[in-house]
């Protein structure tokens, strides 16, 4: 056991446009093809990318394009397909976790298998993190992107700080 804190860097993700897209589960493949969306349990990459949230359900994201553009993409690409795309940029809070002890920190909060090879680059899972519904996406550049409902942000950041403050090895 050491009394030093965990080596984790936590940075807030701001200014990202996010659109929740849902189609009927049976239409999932067509939607994925039309918008080049992420495969199940994956995060896609590019200027406009997406997180797979479940059958027929994605979060479309971009740091460059606005939510209106993402909504426009959906309208354009999914014309005849029953879908509902909504701007949820304000409803979600995102943060990026990196550092040597990221896995140790997450292991205190979630039962997801974080071992290399199980949750590799561009993986995306929904789980409960410190009892909060959360989406964990493995960043292409390393580390984890975590998305939670914005209402939990303050509590979750406090929890992260407390958990980082003491390490039990």
């Amino acid at each position: 056991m050491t009394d030093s804190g965990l080596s984790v860097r936590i940075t807030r993700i701001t200014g990202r446009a996010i659109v929740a897209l849902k189609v009927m589960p049976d239409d999932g493949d067509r939607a994925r093809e039309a918008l080049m969306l992420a495969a199940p349990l994956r995060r896609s990459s590019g200027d406009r990318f997406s997180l797979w949230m479940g059958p027929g359900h994605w979060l479309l994201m971009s740091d460059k394009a606005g939510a209106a553009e993402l909504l426009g993409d959906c309208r354009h690409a999914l014309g005849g397909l029953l879908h509902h795309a909504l701007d949820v940029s304000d409803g979600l809070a995102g943060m990026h976790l990196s550092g040597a002890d990221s896995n140790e920190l997450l292991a205190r909060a979630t039962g997801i298998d974080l071992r290399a090879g199980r949750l590799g680059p561009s993986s995306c899972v929904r789980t409960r993190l410190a009892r909060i519904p959360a989406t964990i996406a493995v960043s292409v550049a390393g580390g984890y992107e975590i998305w939670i409902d914005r209402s939990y942000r303050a509590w979750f950041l406090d929890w992260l700080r407390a958990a980082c403050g003491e390490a039990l090895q």
Partner: protein
Amino acid sequence: MTQRQPFRAPSGGRIDRGTPLGFTFNGKPLEGYAGDTLASALLANGVRIVGRGFKFHRPRGVLSAGAEEPNALVGADTGGGMVPLVRATLLPLSEGLRAESQNAFPSVTFDAGRVLDLTRALWPAGFYNKAFKWPGWRVFEGAVRHAAGLGRLPRGADPVRYRHRNTHCDVLVVGSGPAGLGAALEAARRGDDVIVAEQDSAYGGSLLYDPMTITGEASDDWLAAAIAELSGCSNVRLVRHGTVAGYYDHNVLTLHERVTDGGTPAEILWKVRARHVVLATGAIEQPLMFVNNDLPGIMLAGAMHRYAAQYGVHCGRRVAGVVNNDVAWRSLLALSDCGVGVPAVVDVRANVRRALRDAAEARGIAVHTGATPWRARGGRGVKAFHYHGSDGRMAQIRCDAIAMSGGLNPTVHLYSQAGGKLRYDDDLACFLPHACRQDVTVAGAAAGRFATPAEYNIAQRDCAPTKKGAQWVDFQHDVTVADIELAARENYVSVEHMKRYTTAGMSVDQGKTSNLNALTVLARLTHRLPGDVGTTTFRPNYMPVTLGAIAGDRHGEFYAPARQLPASEWHGANGAVFDDYGSWSRPAYYGDGREAAIEREVRIVRSGVGLFDGSPLGKIEIKGPDAATFLDRIYANTVSTLAPGKVRYGLMLNENGIVIDDGVIVRLADDCFLLNTTAGGADRIAAWLDEWHQCEWPDSKLVIVPVTSQWAVATVAGPRARAVLAGFGGLADLETADFPHMSVRAGTLDDGVPYRLQRVSFSGELSYELSVPANRATATFERLFALGEPHGLGLFGVEALLVLRTEKGYLHVGADTDGTTTPLDLGFGRMIANRTTDFVGARSLRRPADRRPDRRQLVGFEAAPGAGLVRAGAHFVTGAGAARRSEGFVTSACISPTLGRPIGLGLLERGFERRGEDVVAFDDGNVTPVRIVDACFYDADGSRMRD
């Protein structure tokens, strides 16, 4: 022997004699060595009595050397406060350790409670089921509860740090004896991700005191090499002081690790998800049953061997062996080889192998076979052992300790928790793992491989009840053979019934040294085989886990996740006093003085205008051509007839017809709806809708998107609400003609921000709910607050809103309903009757029970001015004294600032037909006369919110 530790051998053992450790037991300073357990150190110091029996307060000493210990449960303070029920056999000795015995007054050596033992005949098994009937249980309850329990809960702050940790592995090996380490090496070498969990402080299990040859090597060498190899593997994690306590479905196991290596003590509760589990948990030696077999100094033979070999502790000067199997002979011979005096061995078997006899006699140990153990003699310790020889004559061995062995029983607790079935093996006289639905392997002694049947040669356990003394079966719960005989005589012949009647196996040790003996006795008494009697159910936890470890960090501010409003800081800056509502932290009221603030806020809304943060209101969008039909099925009222741009109240039921949520339904477009749910029900209802769609009506063309946190909601309520909003740029005409009550409009504000405006009211006043993206919440509240200033706008919190809605008689699901309330009970009978299509819960509402006239129905009540608040939870009662009966209860109550008297809502039997009747509200002894009235107290025709 050393002077300070009179029972410590001058050499031997794996302790570090160069590192003496001081500790106290019951305040007496003692000394041990690094590598000791508390139990080994106490034995080295000649401490015989470590505790008292739970029921009869008989003196008890250390029985075992492991997790099965039933007697040496002590309070122990290793720097983190006094923790009760710590097994001295597992607690590593540490400098400054304070330990104290439990369940004794005034001291463990002289315990006044022993009087219960002297009157033991009055307290047989199940006496509490027969006694205390007159004059009533309550008379005795205090004394019985005071006597019950072991140990004292620590007081004050707990300095121990508790954490949870999740992990995955390919192979979890439980136990680090030869079988466990062998399995771990094999898995590690093939590249599996391995965790080895060892509950003791050192790896090796029985190898630490019972050396053998493994693959041609001395076991010490093999052990050192194995640990070195495993420690060097990046794919292996070794966990000491870690007890696997629970085995659940899907190979999920809990591992309770006690971190003791310096620093602040800590406990980690691991949740391990393993692809495969190897249970190498060993076997537990069982006691023999004879009279006074609980005296201090009587121990399990294997434990005595371990104390001598691993800790250099002699548990007696003259140790008599009393056994029924060959494995125990090995322990006795090893004891003798360690220098312990073993004058004789008494074996119940006549056919003891010649080699064992010779080995014993070569060591000067007298051998008595074919004997029948009778009794141990002594008071606070053993003085002699009496037995009937093979010739039937009584004989005696003078001794100060007895090493007994009733054979081994595999430690199958975890296997059984995993769903594994057990079978009784006649040759080994124990229960063995048989078949399990989970991916688990049992290895070594846990699988019954402690010896071949020929080398083990155990005599079947047996013990005839006697009235000439107590033969103890369960040392921890003070259960005797006679207790089991009584249970059988009273027809508690199922092992589960016997367990509960006698409490055998029900205490902290969960019968690790008593279950097998108890069911063996029961089998004899009921003329069955032990395998036919079976075992009781093994449930988690295998060993006690501290409540702190179970809680982890879930205490204080992290007890439960708290949700914050988007404009939370703004509310705080404006005097909000926050409270928890569901999972949300919301302004309860603003300013000082709760009651005065609530009253002031209510008056502002009734007479002027108030501003409220309704952001937690659940918001779920449903879109698709089948959305209307779907919602017709989900809600108890019809939704499909709602016109676009309109809003309707909706009531949601579960399959049993019970009200689970309410709110308004907004039709945004022909094929798109917005559901507003209760704040606390938003997530639950979203999941509920998904379940019905995915499981029951998957062909319905619709999609469901929860958007609760995307939108902040500012509610402007009061006669001057329209005037305030009129200054808000971008909102169109707000007059009733264009924008009537229960309608919605959406658009873009002057600054390009999208908005939704709903004209709905939960206060009974003219009211608008303005929704904007959450990041605009603070700016929106600031702007509305500024716009409202000329109109006397005031902020109001949840408490004022609850008063406002109570005055109006509006339902608050969860407060005015419980798990039995149907819409018929709430006065929605006409709405239900008008439904022509099916909906969730409809069938249940046709049940006669849901239509009984004496059901509790929602009514209003009022008391005379000045009567004082009738609190929610108070009962409407009839009769007095013993004839007093509850007819219902108050669900919501307040002293109405508007009406100037106590009012409220409640569920009352036949409530609808009792309006105008005077009843009595009974609240914790206070009686208040109230009159039953209509639930709506204010503006019954709704003109204030509609005009």
